[in-house]
């Protein structure tokens, strides 16, 4: 059984390559749109709170609330309130992506060595300059780690949105009658690939960022 399912999947891939590509693009589009919106919301708040060393309960609360919200429930609520659609699904994904980005940004900035910040203030950098030239670069690796968690999370959930009519690779996975078991497996493999590629890309950026921080490490 192991072999036949995967053999079917790998037969499906070349024969339905353009379909898979189109569906993968849909999933990616949904995920990255949500991620971008989440970044726009969470980044400024996290940076500001972290810089002011304020709002620790908020950061912790958001992160634990974010973890306890099952993605399926959120997708369901999104459909129930707004109906099925690209931006409706994107909104549900934004809600999921904000907590990890917000929390990591907060701790990335908050955790920057206070001596470095004090030295920067001492040589006359403004608060904005401290944030953009000292805290942000020093906190970048941790911030990117949060982005990676959010990205993986959002791709996984975008797939789930797909099985409820949201399009993308999840759509193939929910239609075994149409695409056959091979199609379902092919889509699952592509979903995994999409998540792993995104995570790997962000991991590389993260590594470059932390290497710049500590060249000897």
């Amino acid at each position: 059984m192991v072999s036949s399912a995967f053999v079917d999947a790998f037969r499906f891939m070349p024969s339905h390559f353009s379909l898979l590509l189109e569906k993968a693009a849909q999933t990616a589009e949904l995920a990255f749109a949500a991620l971008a919106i989440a970044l726009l919301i969470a980044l400024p708040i996290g940076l500001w709170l972290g810089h002011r060393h304020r709002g620790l309960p908020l950061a912790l609360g958001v992160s634990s609330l974010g973890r306890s919200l099952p993605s399926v429930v959120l997708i369901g609520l999104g459909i129930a309130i707004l109906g099925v659609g690209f931006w409706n699904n994107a909104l549900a994904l934004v809600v999921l992506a904000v907590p990890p980005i917000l929390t990591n940004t907060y701790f990335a900035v908050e955790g920057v060595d206070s001596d470095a910040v004090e030295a920067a203030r001492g040589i006359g950098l403004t608060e904005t300059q401290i944030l953009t030239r000292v805290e942000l670069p020093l906190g970048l690796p941790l911030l990117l780690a949060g982005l990676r968690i959010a990205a993986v999370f959002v791709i996984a959930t975008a797939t789930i949105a797909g099985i409820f009519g949201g399009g993308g690779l999840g759509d193939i996975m929910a239609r075994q009658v149409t695409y056959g078991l091979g199609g379902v497996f092919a889509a699952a493999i592509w979903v995994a690939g999409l998540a792993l590629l995104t995570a790997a890309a962000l991991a590389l950026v993260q590594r470059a960022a932390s290497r710049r921080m500590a060249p000897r490490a």
Partner: protein
Amino acid sequence: MTAQRFADGPVIPNFGKPSACLRDNGWFCTDWIHEHWGDTLQPALIQHIQLTLIAVGIGFAISFALALVALRFGFLDPPLGVFTDFLYTIPSLALFQLLVPLSGVTVTTVEIALVSYTLFILYRNIVVGLRSVPPEVLESARGMGLTRRQTFLRVELPLAMPAILAGLRIAVVATISIATVAAFLIEDGLGAPIFAAIGTPDLFKTELVAAGGLAILLALTADALLTLAQRALTPWNRVR
């Protein structure tokens, strides 16, 4: 495969004699919740707790063993870290599906997937916890004549507790959340009524809210209980 009913042919649940609330597909129809607590919600909740406990229990045992191996043979730590990270990165829906050829459309498949998600958090936290023991504490333990075993049980393990319990907390909450996706594969846990609700033509709001609310409540309760346990078990962390 159960998944196909959502797109290819949703199952219409039998509402019985509908109340006004149910006829309007209200958000929180208490009559339905009352009526179906015993046959739907409660069993799903219990299944969900079982799914979670088994996954975290097995995940913890595996992570602990892996952490001990990694601490003994340091060169194994990076590959183990990458491997658990890899498993954690595969989207749940895909992992559930990809495991089917291995173990079929069964609870085993679901548990394997859930276990593999716990490994990343638990393994990392156990390793970090055990490594965080200050070298001077280990030296004084050795100098006082504690054996390897005594040092581990009386010093290293208790000092790693905060990190281990923090990892356990995150793993439990994450597993409760991800376990709802298991209903894609098998009708088990709180995911089953949630999937059923979303799959209903008009989307059955009361069932979604009731089952989803239970999942969130379960996660928050587990979070609170484990936080309390963490405080009770590590009194030395509360001082100052």
